[in-house]
């Protein structure tokens, strides 16, 4: 499969993107018709709903609100659009806590405050790492290493914190859930932290730790989970593919020349193997598209490089596929007030 992409008309935002891991979140509202993008700028989330050709779009800027404070100055670490079977939610994580909104940002449905110390200490407190898991969980990471599990009802605001998972010792960077729909997959969630440690979990009334894959004191900034395979991007510019439950390393790619900030994939099933398009982006200005195939019978993984795009003179902090098959992707970079889009030629 050869994929070549060309640049489309960019979508302009009201403010520039901050330099954060996984800074771009995309919701496919109507495939090939409408996308909703969220990009963080300091304490504000830029939300843009855009038509497929990028010509029609509407903006919304969501100010971070915490507790009773109308607008908060605390910095947002991540914003993610979470898809659950019954509803979509927008989740923001910041220095003060976690906010959950209806996916258009119109109403806040839940607010969870983090324990912050009275006087400043050297260890800063924040939440980061967001994943929607199975039917009803939203998991959020914390700088202490804890993973908070929230139980989300089909509608309404009766969201409760059901569990706190304590395995990581360093700040959580990113989390990802299994969304292949493959019932044979045991692992539902993978969490990553600043030391590169990966924890693989099974969800349920009580989440259960399946495996811990140690890091090498290198931050794992972005992680994905597909059919039991963990795909992780590191601060060393490397991508590693692990079998989640056993921790076996399938492959290691010397992918980028700077810190990786974003990894995303678009899955599609082949006849005998599971295949997906993977996209990696880093501060070195390169976006790279890969083709990954998993063969369950032989338990083997193959990763093949497909395409390079140099987004000149930018430190990329977010790159996501806009649809289910890798036809189009969008890119955000530090200090840039546009979402740059590419589609297959």
């Amino acid at each position, binding site marked *: 499969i050869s994929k070549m992409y060309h640049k489309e008309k960019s979508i302009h935002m009201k403010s520039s993107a901050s330099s954060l891991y996984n800074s771009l979140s995309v919701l496919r509202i109507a495939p090939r018709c409408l996308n909703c993008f969220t990009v963080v700028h300091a304490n504000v989330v830029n939300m843009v709903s855009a038509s497929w050709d990028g010509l029609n779009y509407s903006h919304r800027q969501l100010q971070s609100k915490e507790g009773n404070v109308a607008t908060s100055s605390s910095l947002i670490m991540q914003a993610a659009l979470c898809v659950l079977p019954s509803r979509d939610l927008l989740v923001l994580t910041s220095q003060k806590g976690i906010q959950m909104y209806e996916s258009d940002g119109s109403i806040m449905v839940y607010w969870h405050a983090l324990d912050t110390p009275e006087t400043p200490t050297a260890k*800063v407190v924040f939440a980061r790492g967001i994943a929607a898991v199975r039917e009803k969980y939203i998991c959020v990471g914390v700088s202490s290493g804890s993973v908070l599990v929230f139980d989300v009802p089909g509608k309404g605001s009766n969201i409760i914190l059901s569990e706190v998972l304590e395995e990581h010792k360093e700040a959580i960077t990113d989390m990802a859930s299994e969304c292949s729909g493959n019932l044979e997959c045991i692992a539902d969630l993978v969490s990553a932290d*600043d030391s590169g440690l990966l924890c693989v979990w099974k969800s349920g009334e009580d989440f259960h730790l399946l495996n811990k894959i140690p890091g090498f004191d290198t931050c794992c900034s972005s992680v994905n989970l597909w059919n039991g395979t963990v795909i992780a991007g590191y601060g060393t510019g490397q991508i590693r593919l692990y079998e989640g439950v056993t921790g*076996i390393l399938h492959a290691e790619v010397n992918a980028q020349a700077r810190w990786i900030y974003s990894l995303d994939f678009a899955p599609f099933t082949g006849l005998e193997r599971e295949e997906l398009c993977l996209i990696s982006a880093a501060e070195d200005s390169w976006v790279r598209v890969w083709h990954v195939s998993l063969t369950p019978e032989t338990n083997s993984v193959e990763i093949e490089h497909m395409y390079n795009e140099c987004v000149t003179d930018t430190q990329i902090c977010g790159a996501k596929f806009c649809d289910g098959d890798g036809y189009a992707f969008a890119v955000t970079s530090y200090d840039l007030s546009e979402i740059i889009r590419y589609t297959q030629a």
Partner: protein
Amino acid sequence: MSQRTLPLLIINLGGEMIYILDQRLRAQDDNDDKTQRGRWTDDDRKRVMNDIVATMFNKAFLEELLRPQDLYSHRALRTVLTRLAHASIMRLNQASMDKLYDLMTMAFKYQIVLCPRPKDLLLITFNHTDTIKELVKDNPSLVNQINEAQRQLIEVYTPLSDGDFELIRHTLLVLFQDMQIRVSIFLKEKIQNPNGHFVLQTSGPVPYGFEVPGLIRYFNAKGQEVRRTRFPSGGNYTSALRQGSFDLSGDRVTILGTNMYNTPSSQEMDPSTTSNSTRKQKQADTTPNPLATEELNLLAKLMGGMEVQKILNVDTGFKVNLLALDQEEEGIGISEGTAHESSRVINIQATQDQIASTELARIAGEFDEGGSLTEGPGNKGDDLLAMMDEL
């Protein structure tokens, strides 16, 4: 965000400021124009440098900086740096200080953006302290002060993880977000684009600890490598250089944070090369580097009319007499994004430094006598300012 950002911010920005002021004062000395009202001798320059450095590396000042705390706002930051600039017999008026602040912030932003690994922020800081030490090397007690400061930095920062440093870097990038002031020297050296964004090379050595992109390795269940394939990386990357030294002294390897205004051989704007690069060196030149000084011409003109009075009482200071300028130097563009009014011609009125010192005194006067940690943004930096008054 990160509570450990302030010391690195002040030392690096202060360092850039010192480079600029030092270069300007040297250029004053070289200026043979006898019609100027006053001249800065080399002794004057050294005195100014010594005074500013002594303030910046004062023990109590540093202790206050190193306390875990939030970053200052731009306003508070500028006030602190203005105080630093005025720690000696030299005075700058508002416009000059604005210009100086723009230059030093864009220079440091450049270093942060190009910083290869988050931990290299410390090497950039050490490049600044190394160079400052060199500038005041005739003053052993000052050198000791800087060494002591460096020891404290080493103690505080070397235990931090990459994630901690990345958070510091993120905090700095938020502070400098959307600052796109175009700087002539950067534009001419092609390290900044006309739109204000910095040029990011896709070539050169990868950071220490990185592998050159292009290799895929496969492993079996026992962890043994069984196969490798290659892919085109698109860029022109080479292997990492040796790691820079995090000791009190040593080869820092990166040139980010070294004095780019220095004459004449640091025309190397490409930070991927080392100071021992084999690239062609420009011939040693005794006259000030025209490219380096072009950006600072405005500053020079503004400071040119200074009267040098050898007075002991610093409070009366020097009135800065400034020449009205007919024509602004080309190329110092100020983008719409900043707070400054964009103007191609700057007319400078002669001002008295009393206006400036009154404002600073007023700000210092707002300092809460209780000395407690207050949350309001207006109080940030007040402790520091009050302390600087006592120095």
